[in-house]
């Protein structure tokens, strides 16, 4: 019984939140890594792209809710998601047309594009705040819990509760579907193959008849879809607030770099590494050990490796270690 309690406590506070947060980071990091792999610059505007896509989704969700449309137990936001993606695609294509294409044609250095993307970031930042404001917005409806901590305790008679939020399950399932679709697209379709060819060797791809503008356009469309999905899932699970999307940028970049910039598989692995390192290393093991050990050995202290103050430092220490020993990231990406 104590063993079960320990497992439940660990799942409730570490595994489940870690998996949900990891999926959100992985989706974000995929977008960053695609831009890096194909367009060859670090896109600092990615966090605010997520905020923009999520904002459109929030607005459409409100509209649908006012019409009385709902998905029953599922959040209405899933219905609004395609509109959000469409809005985000239009924004990114417009940005590319107005800003990035100019620098691409001039063959600007990546570092210039990075700075340009920061400018774009501030503009998107402003657009989102002008339209929806800087405050928290709630747009989640439907069933909040698949199983709540209290129900779980009653059902099993265990001392520890296990809460599984519907948004956590939706996050995981959507992330799996999106990643599967992405890999199918990149590996099986002609367009996907041309994107990979362009990423591996631009000149060779051009000689083989790959249309660069088309590849760039496809990349932005996919990035917009990934960003919107990540942004909406994050917003559903936590809450929609423009500023936190800006803050998400750091862990997302850490994920992409740890995994190996430009490598989609690495982005996913990186997302989970960062999410779990934040949650596990600062976790206080007192409760779990208290169940596992005999009473006489049960710990008095918190048994915490590091205080939660350092949780961000943890992800960056991991980032540094990876870059020192494996500059291309865990999975072979491009060196930074």
């Amino acid at each position, binding site marked *: 019984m104590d063993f079960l309690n320990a497992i439940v406590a660990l799942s409730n*506070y570490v595994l489940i*939140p870690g998996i949900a947060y990891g999926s959100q980071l992985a989706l974000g990091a995929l977008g960053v890594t695609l831009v890096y792999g194909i367009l060859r610059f670090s896109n600092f505007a990615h966090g605010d792209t997520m905020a923009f896509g999520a904002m459109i989704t929030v607005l459409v969700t409100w509209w649908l809710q006012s019409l009385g449309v709902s998905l029953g137990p599922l959040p209405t936001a899933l219905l609004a998601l395609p509109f959000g993606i469409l809005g985000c695609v239009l924004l990114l294509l417009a940005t590319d047309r107005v800003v990035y294409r100019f620098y691409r044609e001039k063959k600007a250095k990546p570092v210039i594009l990075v700075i340009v993307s920061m400018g774009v970031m501030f503009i998107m930042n402003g657009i989102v705040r002008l339209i929806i404001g800087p*405050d928290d917005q709630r747009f989640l409806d439907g069933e909040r819990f698949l199983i709540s901590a209290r129900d779980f305790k009653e059902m099993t008679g265990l001392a520890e509760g296990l809460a599984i939020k519907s948004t956590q399950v939706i996050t995981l399932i959507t992330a799996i579907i999106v990643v599967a679709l992405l890999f199918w697209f990149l590996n099986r379709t002609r367009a996907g193959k041309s994107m990979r060819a362009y990423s591996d060797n631009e000149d060779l791809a051009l000689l083989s008849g790959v249309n660069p503008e088309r590849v760039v356009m496809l990349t932005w469309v996919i990035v917009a879809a990934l960003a919107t999905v990540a942004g909406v899932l994050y917003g559903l699970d936590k*809450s929609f607030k423009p500023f936190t999307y800006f803050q998400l940028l750091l862990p997302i970049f850490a994920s992409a770099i740890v995994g190996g910039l430009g490598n989609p598989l690495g982005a996913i692995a990186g997302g989970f590494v960062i*999410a779990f390192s934040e*949650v596990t290393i600062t976790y206080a093991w*007192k*409760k779990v050990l208290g169940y596992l050990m005999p009473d006489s050995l049960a710990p008095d202290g*918190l048994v915490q490796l590091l205080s*939660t103050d350092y949780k961000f430092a943890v992800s960056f220490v991991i980032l540094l270690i990876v870059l020192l020993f494996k500059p291309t990231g865990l999975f072979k990406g491009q060196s930074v």
Partner: protein
Amino acid sequence: MKKLLMATAATALMAGTAYADDVKLGILLGFTGPLESIAPDMASGAKLAIDQVNASGKFLDGQTVSAVQGDTGCIDASLAVSSAERLITSDGVKGIVGGMCSGETGAVLQNAAIPNGIVMISPSATSPALSTVEDNGLFFRTSPSDARQGQVMADILNDRGIKEVAITYTNNDYGKGLADSVASAFTESGGTVTMNASHEDGKADYSAEVGALASAGGEVLIIVGYIDQGGAGIINGALDSGAFDTFMFPDGMVSETLEANFAASTEGSFGQVPSAQGDGPAKFAEIGKAAGFDPTGTFAPESYDAAALILLAMQAAGSTDPAVYKEKVMDVANAPGEEILPGELDKALQILKDGGDIDYVGASAVELIGPGESAGTYREIEMKDGKMVEVGFR
């Protein structure tokens, strides 16, 4: 953004209407940042006092007072100091109502107010550290120190028979000051604090913090934070994972947002916010509503009192020179003298003009003690049937 624009526009308007025979008062608050939702009501409170003084026409032989606003960003010390510098050097204010948050207030005091010799009365900076700061007699506050709030919180916990608490605080001067003060007061009175850990505002994910707090355990989770910031994330995380169902909310958390979003889901949770007993609050509520703002907003009464105290001290000293009127602030705030309630500034100005003595009570029952801070009464609140209700005073 909108508020910033409005604040700037308002400042521009104010500056436009100023004329020669005019005393300027700075209103230095966090119009942007984590407490941006309560700043507008505070500014309205301070302006109400100024309007009433102007309406009476008895201030320093008919001089008028105008307000100049500055933004502190609440957590942005450099913005706060540069705003204060602007108020003092370019606008020429004779006193400042502000700052708003503890860290920023300390910075403004050290870098702008003391070097320029300007009186500051903060309506809302509550860090215990500000009690002992070397201020040349220039700094006062109409809010109580958090050393007092920590004691009140320990009393509330003991009266409710709670033995074990976990504390999480926002990682700044206010959060750390209050968390340490409640932890030491509660431990002294025999309670146990299982964990006292910080959280950063505006983070993407709080499951690590909630996990650690849940592991430490406790009957109640005390969230010393901001409802517009990390505080909400912590409540959500704790409720979702079933880690805690009962919370204690100190002043930074108690607001309409808290009631609207969490009153139903945190049934039985409790907290406290600085607030006065007596006739003051009711009278202030009346005139505040008439003036078109929310007079029950957190620290709005304290802001009214801060502005009123500066102006009354000037009247008592017969001078707008901060070096002169700073001596009079304690005199007008405390007994002896005729008690002054909100809306009676006209009467107070007349008494002072005739050389009499007043005891300013105001909207928040001002009683300045020690180094010039409010003695402090708190309103205890509790979540009952999805509503935030008042259960008593401390």
